């Protein structure tokens, strides 16, 4: 390199190679190739090392991004992995599925026309390659405290909480109703974004750190919550949000109308060869599919349907392209893979007699911003149209799904069903039951993986304070 300080100008931003569309739509494999060491170092070297690292501030877990970019530039893989794990329990997951374009890479100084540093791909590279080369978290200084904590839910919040507890000598046992760890990381996010052996590897590492997993156990059904309180010093709840938002229009219960999450879960179960893929097998081969919604879940459904061999996939969203809430990268990939988008369309009815035959849409225009600053779509009278469909997937988002037993254990909720937690600096995420902590989607409403990781870690800090250790 002629001039190191101008590497960001001389070397353009280069994303890792992406599989060509024809090759990727016939499998559920991840579509991005990994970096090699030279490529990672060269891309990492584009970082300016800003005095105020905007990427680090924007990142919900405040990863030490410029610092590990520097380490990768210098070829110090293990040090980078160690540093990356200081702030993030699942960096290889976040590197794959964070919407970096809205977080670190969106905040990158170079994102003003110079091309942001490829932070996500490098984050993934660090942990993947370090684990491959034999790196494991350094647990040599951990003092065993003898305290035990139950973690309900092996999703990102639960895993992150268990990670911090284990690193502080508290023995966590993680319960999950599914037979694999990861929660939605395993069963919700399609494998073409996150291959499932990544989570298997993470399980192996966490077990190596002393985390116990008790899988296939649903608290409240297979095991009473009381049993946890009796056996453990504290409990962390990271149970997610599973209640699907409904459209509230006619025809939602017709055969051929699916909720997004059961659809995705069934597909993944089949891919993994697990039982319970759904009675009808739920594959959309040869069907005309309409996906309703414009978020990340809708994109996942779009791309899953494409890979299942749907004849056509049409995605409708009630605002315009610019106002889409999800990752731009997922949207671009969906388009590339052949999804057709209908913007400014709101479904008002699913039509059909025995079975879905189509979706009645009305054209919208954006009105004045609402309380959250988002412009409200308003229907244009007389603009109804019917898009023919054999299957409809509704991906309107998720609402809290509090367990029935919360009330019995003095775990109080907000009006909208989210769990109430303390905001105290020393003991964050404590629920109204002092021995119970909670974090992730069930506390904040459905959100990103990385925010769940952050809350799980913060809750672990609260638990450590409550237990008087660490």
């Amino acid at each position: 390199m002629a001039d190191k300080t101008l590497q960001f100008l001389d070397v353009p931003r280069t994303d890792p190679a992406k599989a060509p569309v024809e090759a990727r739509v016939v499998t559920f494999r991840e579509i991005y190739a990994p970096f090699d060491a030279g490529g990672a170092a060269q891309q990492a070297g584009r970082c300016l090392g800003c005095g105020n690292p905007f990427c680090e501030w924007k990142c919900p877990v405040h990863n030490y991004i410029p610092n590990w970019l520097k380490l990768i530039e210098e070829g110090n893989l293990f040090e980078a992995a160690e540093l990356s794990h200081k702030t993030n329990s699942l960096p290889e997951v976040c590197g794959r599925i964070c919407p970096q374009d809205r977080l670190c890479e969106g905040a990158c100084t170079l994102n003003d026309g110079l091309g942001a540093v490829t932070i996500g791909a490098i984050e993934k590279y660090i942990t993947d390659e370090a684990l491959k080369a034999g790196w494991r978290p350094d647990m040599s200084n951990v003092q065993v405290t003898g305290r035990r904590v139950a973690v309900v839910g092996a999703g990102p919040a639960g895993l992150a909480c268990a990670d911090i507890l284990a690193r502080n000598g508290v023995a966590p046992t993680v319960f999950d109703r599914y037979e694999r760890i990861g929660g939605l990381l395993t069963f919700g996010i399609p494998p073409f974004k996150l291959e499932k052996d990544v989570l298997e590897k993470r399980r192996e590492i966490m077990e190596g750190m002393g985390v116990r997993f008790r899988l296939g156990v649903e608290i409240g059904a297979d095991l009473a919550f009381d049993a946890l309180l009796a056996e453990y010093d504290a409990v962390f709840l990271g149970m997610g949000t599973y209640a699907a938002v409904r459209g509230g229009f006619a025809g939602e219960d017709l055969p051929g109308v699916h909720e997004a999450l059961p659809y995705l879960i069934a597909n993944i179960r089949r891919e993994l060869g697990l039982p319970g893929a759904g009675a009808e097998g739920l594959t959309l081969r040869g069907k005309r599919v309409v996906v309703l919604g414009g978020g990340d879940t809708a994109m996942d459904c779009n791309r899953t349907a494409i890979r299942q061999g749907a004849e056509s996939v049409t995605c409708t969203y009630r605002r315009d392209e610019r106002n889409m809430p999800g990752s731009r990268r997922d949207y671009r990939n969906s388009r590339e893979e052949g999804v057709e988008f209908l913007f400014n369309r709101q479904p008002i009815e699913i039509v059909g007699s025995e079975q879905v035959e189509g979706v009645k849409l009305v054209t919208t225009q954006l009105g004045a911003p609402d309380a959250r600053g988002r412009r409200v779509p308003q229907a244009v009278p007389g603009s109804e149209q019917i898009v023919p469909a054999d299957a409809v997937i509704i991906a309107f988002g998720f609402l809290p799904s509090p367990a029935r037993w919360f009330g019995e254990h003095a775990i109080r909720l907000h009006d909208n069903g989210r769990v109430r937690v303390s905001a105290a600096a020393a003991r964050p995420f404590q629920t109204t039951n002092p021995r119970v902590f909670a974090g992730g989607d069930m506390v904040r409403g459905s959100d990103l993986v990385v925010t769940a990781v952050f809350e799980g870690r913060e809750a672990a800090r609260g638990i450590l304070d409550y237990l008087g250790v660490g």
Partner: protein
Amino acid sequence: MIATLRFARPGVGLISPPPHHDIYSIEDLAQLIFDLKQVNPQALVSVKLVAEPGVGTVAAGVAKAYADLITVSGYDGGTGASPLSSIKYAGTPWELGLAETHQTLRLNDLRHRVRLQTDGGLKTGLDVVKAALLGAESFGFGTAPMVALGCKYLRICHLNNCATGIATQHNVLRSKYFVGLPQMVMNYFNFVAAEVREILASLGARSLAEIIGRTELLEALPGVTPRQRKLDLRPILANSALAPGAPQFCVTPANAPFDKGELAERMVREMLPAIEGKRGGEFAYELKNYNRSIGARLSGEIARRWGNAGMADAPLTVRCRGNAGQSFGVWNAGGLHLYLEGDANDYVGKGMAGGRLVLRHPRGARYATHETVIMGNTCLYGATGGELFAAGVAGERFAVRNSGAVAVLEGAGDHCCEYMTGGAVCVLGRTGVNFGAGFTGGFAYVLDLERNFVDRYNHELIDISRIHPEAMQSHVQHLEDLLERHVAETASRWAEEIANDLRTFLPKFWVVKPKAASIDSLIENLRRAA
């Protein structure tokens, strides 16, 4: 561009931050302020002080040294090129320094003579009002308007790769990625001003002047943490025991020095027609050692009309006799040739830009010139051009930070040629220790009769070599020229002896140059710079 402004060449290292070897004491500072006011009598001179305990005393000294403005600079904010450790761990808040300065100046009846400015991370109108209440009448902003222009505080200003196109010479970055417009800064300051007005109105004041120094309008908060509750803020808010009528801000147009520089004014009166007509001419004066900064007034008048080197083709020759006061020939401009028969104090030729200074022993003196001091310390400090011939020995720190002047003298004290970045110095005699520390450009000839120069120069950045008559013909010739001119200008018997027997003396000369420079390029570079 930067190299030109700094009188350096691209590739020559510059030591940063540059030490101020011309200001070791408050008297040095007073002299510097006088020099500046001589070269430009209309200018207001500002002195920036770091907010730290005792800054009030320093500020009182600075006010007595006839500065017109004093800036008390706090530790917030900071330049993007400085190391994080300096930004985080150096200095104290401007509030402390400003309060102390304002109180001390009022106590010593000096406040009305100087304008008091404060800076260091000022951002809002509230900051301005607080600073005014603590005694400031002027407010410095650096970082905030930069941010308004698109600065993202990357802290890489020194690397020439600023991605916002601000702190860089890189054409692509400047033309494609700099988004700043003057209106953005105007807009920012309009908002600051509007906020100041709102707060003033809420205080019932019509103008900022009404609230300067009104610390009773500030109320101490109890503090949140136990440590904060222990803070005693009363000393900051104390209104000195002086009568309330003592001025709270500057009421004089400028802080005029006691020394009116009467001889310098007479010289200007007598020579002004020659300067205005660009005619040149010859004049003669007697000097006493209280005649300070002689030549600066003339250089200022020349530079104002004709630029730094404007009268080089029609020089003014001024023949002086006697003992020159401090700063003889300071800021000397092109076309001003000062001859002095006698001797001079400190700072001869400080900041010289062009022209010629000649110092020689009185006619009939029988002492050996190369064993006799003819000028004081810190001569030719920071000179950027011109020439100096001195038939005698200079004090310490000769030609420190010289970047373009050519000088011949017959001996020098310690630290000669420190931080030099250009020009040439020829010492026909003994030098002190630490010769050439931080020397990154230009070159020197040193006559080493005692064969101990090797022990006297600073080995870090320079090397020395002998002059081989065959291989280094250009150096021999250059040295011969310098000797010849020195003899012609000063009638030095010592230089004449060397010139007449150069075969004997030549092997005793060293050529001193930066390690990074090639010996063959030295004279060519000097010629190109001239």
